[in-house]
């Protein structure tokens, strides 16, 4: 057991830190706008991704041939930590970088990797995830979007929902039913599809916080070459489970993000009036801050244990559900604490006088609650843990 960084890792961290410091102005320039507003604002984030890529920070663990620097998982974690501390801009192509790319590295053909990995890293292709459907939420395998073989193509028809970045997407990886006669987990394929192809229509989905971070995607006989199937036809469920493993295990929920939220909450308690003093004096708030410290600290430690396991060649199977369950429930408690610290000011919205951070705390609080739903609800994660980690019977 050793939490010291090796000389190489320390040097790597210093390099990241130095580079981010040098680019502080650029970072602030990017963060001054909201990519969700689209147009030039989005392009400013894409430009930032290119700057990252050109400096070799776009996808640090990837092989050099695809624009990475072959960094270790520990180094990747160091990069993320520094990036979050430096308030680096949102990574707009995170679905491509964190979900599709590692899936292609495991299950893709050489041609597929060749065709997409560099473009993902350079942000030439913004990727979306086409998994959920209106009637296939927790029960993902009941999906109905179908793809039918026609010559060299698959022809896709159906509807996907909760597609992050949908309105900005160039490509989408879609789970489609390719064999309607097989048992429901069997006849599914994992297919890459150009979103600019005819028959693909995107409608933004307005959320309860007024954002439109998600979209619905309608496929009407959209064509994609059969060479875009990842893994074998009808065996896409296994591929999708790999992707979900990345999503639940390491793709989201970086410790540095929660540490930053905690710091911000602590700062807020020092400034928020409460009972003639500030919230930081309130014993109930202090208890909850302490618990939040405990939980974020343990998340960091557990992530480091996982990292060590992976670095030693271990894999992350259904245990990824423990990670997802932990951070999503922790995030909800953290954001709820922020609400209670703000007290009556919590409800002040964008554009209101007196709204702390222009109302973003409330929006984050709502997103935190969505975190317990997307990428597998807490209930689904508990099912997985009970049945596949503890080995309890399925029915």
């Amino acid at each position, binding site marked *: 057991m050793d939490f010291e960084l090796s000389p190489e890792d320390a040097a790597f961290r210093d390099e990241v830190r130095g580079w981010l410091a040098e680019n502080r102005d650029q970072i602030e320039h990017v963060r001054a706008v909201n990519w969700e507003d689209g147009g030039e604002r989005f392009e400013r984030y894409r430009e930032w991704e290119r700057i990252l890529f050109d400096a070799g920070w776009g996808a640090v663990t990837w092989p050099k041939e695809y624009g990475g620097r072959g960094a270790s998982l520990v180094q990747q974690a160091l990069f993320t930590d520094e990036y979050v501390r430096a308030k680096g801009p949102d990574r707009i192509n995170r679905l491509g970088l964190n979900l599709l790319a590692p899936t292609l590295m495991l299950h893709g053909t050489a041609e597929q990797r060749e065709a997409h990995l560099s473009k993902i890293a350079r942000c030439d292709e913004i990727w979306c995830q086409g998994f*959920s459907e*209106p*009637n296939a*939420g*927790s*029960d993902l395998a*009941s999906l109905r979007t179908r793809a039918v073989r026609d010559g060299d193509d698959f022809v896709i028809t159906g509807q996907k*929902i*909760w597609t992050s970045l949908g309105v900005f997407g160039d490509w989408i990886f879609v789970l489609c039913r390719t064999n309607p006669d097989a048992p429901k987990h069997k006849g599914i394929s994992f297919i890459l599809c150009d979103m600019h192809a005819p028959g693909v229509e995107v409608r933004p*989905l*307005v*959320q*309860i*916080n*007024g954002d439109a971070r998600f979209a619905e995607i309608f496929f009407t006989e959209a064509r994609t070459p059969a060479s875009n199937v990842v893994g074998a036809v009808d065996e896409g469920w296994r591929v999708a489970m790999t992707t979900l493993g990345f999503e639940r295990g390491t793709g989201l929920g970086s410790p540095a993000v929660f540490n930053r939220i905690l710091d911000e909450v602590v700062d807020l308690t020092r400034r928020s009036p409460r*009972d003639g003093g500030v919230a930081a004096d*309130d014993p*109930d708030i202090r208890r909850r801050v302490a618990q939040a410290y405990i939980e974020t600290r343990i998340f960091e430690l557990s992530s480091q244990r996982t990292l060590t396991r992976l670095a030693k060649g271990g894999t992350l199977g259904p245990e990824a559900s423990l990670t997802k369950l932990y951070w999503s429930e922790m995030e909800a408690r953290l954001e709820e604490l922020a*609400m*209670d610290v703000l*007290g*009556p*000011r*919590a*409800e*002040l*919205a*964008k*554009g*209101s*006088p*007196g*709204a702390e951070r222009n*109302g973003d705390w*409330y929006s984050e609080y*709502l997103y935190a*609650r*969505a975190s*317990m*739903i*997307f990428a597998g*609800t*807490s*209930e689904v994660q*508990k099912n997985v843990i009970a049945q596949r980690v503890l080995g309890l019977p399925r029915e």
Partner: protein
Amino acid sequence: MDFDFSEEQYLLRDTVRDLLRRECTPKHIRALYDDPGGRSPERWRKLAELGVVGLTVPEEYGGSGMNEVDLVLLLEEAGRSLLPEPLLEHTAVAAPLLAHAGSEAQRREWLPRLSSGEATASIGLASSPFVADATADLVVLERDGELHALTQDRLTLTPLRSWDGTRRLFEVTAAETGDDTRLAGGREPAHWAFDHAAAATATVLVGVAAALLDQTVAYVQQREQFGRRIGAFQAVQHKLAETLLLVESARSAVYYAAYALANELPDAPIAVSVAKAYASDAERRANYEALQLHGGIGFTWEHDLHLWLKRGKALEIAYGDADWHRRRIADWVYATAN
């Protein structure tokens, strides 16, 4: 010993429920999200005609001369239907406060008009930095522990925006207060007002929580996943059973708080804190389970669920959150017990 309501009280509740079911639907609520400052004078007038607006005003001033117990079921309905008009501020607090602690001149000038719905009143206490519906004809404002009844010409309002698009919040400053504006009578008017506001808020929260629970039960009865209705899953059933117990228990607490206030019982402030602490927690739980069990669809603007989620969230915190009221209870337990 009779812990129930009279037939008349239930009848009035049913009448109001019917009215609100027709005239205070999610469609009506949504319209306000796009209409800053919007209120429905029409709906308020109808409530006034039913005697609801002036329910707590003494008969000699043209009101119905009823009390907190008569009102409590109606506040629950207000929560259930998300009534945007200031039944809480006007009928549950400001009007009876004026009757309780106003000078004879203040009563005579205002109560008949507050009772008929011709004028509205709101309330701004020190514990809440913002005043809801502060554009009312009369605003009772706390300054240095005293309450003053102020008309708009004495006030400066800064409009705020709430995430709950139906709430109308303002920062309010008073130009001048004096002996003519002070509410001098009755027992500690500011405490009286706070306890009434907290109890009424707890009651509205019970209505919000009940509505969230009902909608969620209906949804899980119909939504299918894994080949069956999700309401058949034990994890879902247990969450909803626990939520029902919380909401039902909160009901006991808010009804008793109304009774204790109506009868000026010595334990009224503590009954209020019991009600607000428990109702806040119960609604928080209902709020969580409602969104969690609706899943993604409940996260869309298009679905109505968020209208309740946001109202509930705002009221959990208003007039003392659960921890604040628990501290008040602990102080009281240790001041009086044994």
